[in-house]
């Protein structure tokens, strides 16, 4: 077993070596511009791009023509939301989203809201982090033009009832955008069955290269139109100008093909490892709380709060395991995780959370090592924690008058 161990597969995934092999010829030998229509270099590049487009579309049950390449999910989210708002502004300006979306969605709608271009409803989630489809229905007004709800959450892994939301959107004739960044490649996604009109996803979360993503844009029933957010050569059916990064797209296509072929196998392995990690930790450490949905969540996700210890210190104590925390000290904003707060997790437990993100290349040995390390460090830090000491003495921590700073 090699250290450090990578257990942060929600942030990014290592590239599958088989993906790299398919990409290599497209750097030096087949370097053509896919938009060059008049020579063999261009044709070779175009053929490779179209092949990848097919592989990607197949994974999500779409038509290859419905795939628009972007630089990644953040760009896809921006393009979908801003593109729809601009294109359909005559119809209305109301957007429905949820409070636990990724910041690529939340900051986009907030920026539009701030400029007076959109009115936004932020739906709450239940204690497991799920959006209630009926809340979506109730939030719809005659000005609503877009519903944007994520497939699976990046912190807690909870999977939303996307199909039900898609049905309501269709019923009301409102476009449905789904940020499926964490879900595509990990769980079955079918844009037809789920009633999705626009969907963002990215290559590097599914063992493909960084720097390329896609926006699925429905072509019929209804035919969705979006206003381009980048002016230029009119690539990608006018929706996203810019020369296509052929090697990245080829890798993205291969990554999708592998995910499709190996999803059942990967899922079974990941669930077995994740469940073992969860059960062993929970059994050994009292007052450990699972965040997110107990069953309806991504196969590789585990998010636990360890009462009385702070997340950043936990990470520091496990330097040879790459993990992430909802603690304020680990965030750029110095605020504890807004996702956990939206679930109703107390601020102190949000500070104490650790996200384990398992992926295709993790092994049983690594999970054993992680279990041992987590138990060791939580125990050590609890011995060091005045809160643990007080709780053990029977002090109700909620009744204490803390000097907040």
């Amino acid at each position, binding site marked *: 077993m090699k250290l450090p161990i990578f257990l942060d597969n929600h942030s990014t995934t290592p590239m599958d070596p088989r993906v790299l092999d398919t990409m290599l010829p497209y750097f030096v030998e087949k370097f053509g511009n896919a938009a060059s229509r008049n020579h063999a270099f261009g044709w070779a590049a175009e053929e490779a791009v179209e092949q990848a487009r097919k592989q990607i579309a197949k994974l999500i049950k779409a038509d290859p023509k419905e795939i628009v390449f972007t630089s990644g999910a953040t760009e896809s989210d921006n393009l979908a939301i801003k593109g729809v708002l601009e294109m359909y502004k005559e119809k209305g300006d109301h957007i429905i989203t949820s409070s636990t979306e990724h910041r690529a969605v939340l900051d986009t709608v907030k920026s539009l809201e701030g400029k007076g271009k959109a009115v936004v409803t932020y739906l709450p989630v239940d204690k497991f982090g799920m959006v209630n489809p009926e809340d979506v229905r109730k939030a719809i007004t005659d000005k609503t033009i877009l519903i944007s709800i994520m497939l699976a959450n990046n912190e807690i892994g909870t999977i939303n009832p996307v199909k039900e939301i898609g049905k309501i959107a269709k019923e009301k004739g409102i476009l449905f955008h789904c940020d499926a960044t964490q879900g595509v490649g990990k769980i079955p996604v079918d844009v037809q069955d789920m009633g999705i009109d626009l969907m963002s996803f990215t290559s590097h979360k599914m063992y493909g290269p960084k720097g390329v993503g896609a926006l699925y844009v429905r072509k019929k029933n209804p035919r969705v139109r979006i206003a381009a957010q980048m002016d230029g050569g009119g690539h990608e059916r006018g929706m996203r100008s810019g020369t296509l990064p052929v090697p990245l797209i080829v890798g993205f296509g291969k990554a999708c093909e592998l995910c499709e072929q190996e999803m059942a196998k990967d899922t079974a392995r990941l669930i077995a490892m994740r469940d073992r990690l969860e059960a062993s930790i929970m059994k050994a450490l009292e007052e450990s709380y699972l965040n997110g949905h107990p069953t309806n969540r991504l196969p590789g996700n585990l998010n636990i709060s360890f009462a009385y210890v702070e997340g950043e*210190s936990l990470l520091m104590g496990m330097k040879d395991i790459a993990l992430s925390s909802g603690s304020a000290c680990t965030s750029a904003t110095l605020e504890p995780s807004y996702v956990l707060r939206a679930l109703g997790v107390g*601020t*102190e437990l949000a500070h104490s959370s650790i996200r384990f993100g398992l992926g295709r290349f993790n092994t049983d040995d690594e999970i054993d090592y992680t279990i041992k390390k987590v138990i060791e460090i939580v125990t050590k830090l609890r011995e060091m*924690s005045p809160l643990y000491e007080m709780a053990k003495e029977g002090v109700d921590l909620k009744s204490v008058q803390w*000097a907040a700073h």
Partner: protein
Amino acid sequence: MAYSDKVVDHFNNPRNMGSFKKDEEGVGTGMVGAPECGDVMKLQIKVQNDTIVDAKFKTFGCGSAIASSSLATEWLKGKTIDEAQKIKNTDIVQELNLPPVKIHCSVLAEDAIKAALADYQKKADGALIDAK
């Protein structure tokens, strides 16, 4: 974010971690911070003849908060009450090479020192009044 070697050292080998009984003679206890803010420090001193003969801490917080309180106990030992009053958060920042986002950890440690000293003074004054 990379931690300084000194922070890592205090985190891995905390000095004087533990507790005194609060009602023990000569013990002053300071507890500052709040769980919602992500850090709580408990700092205790044991005083004999106006000199801090021992100090202990327990901290809930990030590595820098743990290191700041660990360092504080090291510095407190052997100091008189007056000398201890003079420990400044900026001294801790300098010693541990704390980055700007972690300065509040040193402020908390200074607050904890002040609170422990005040608690000791209060108890000592009370004992004096009782004696009279």
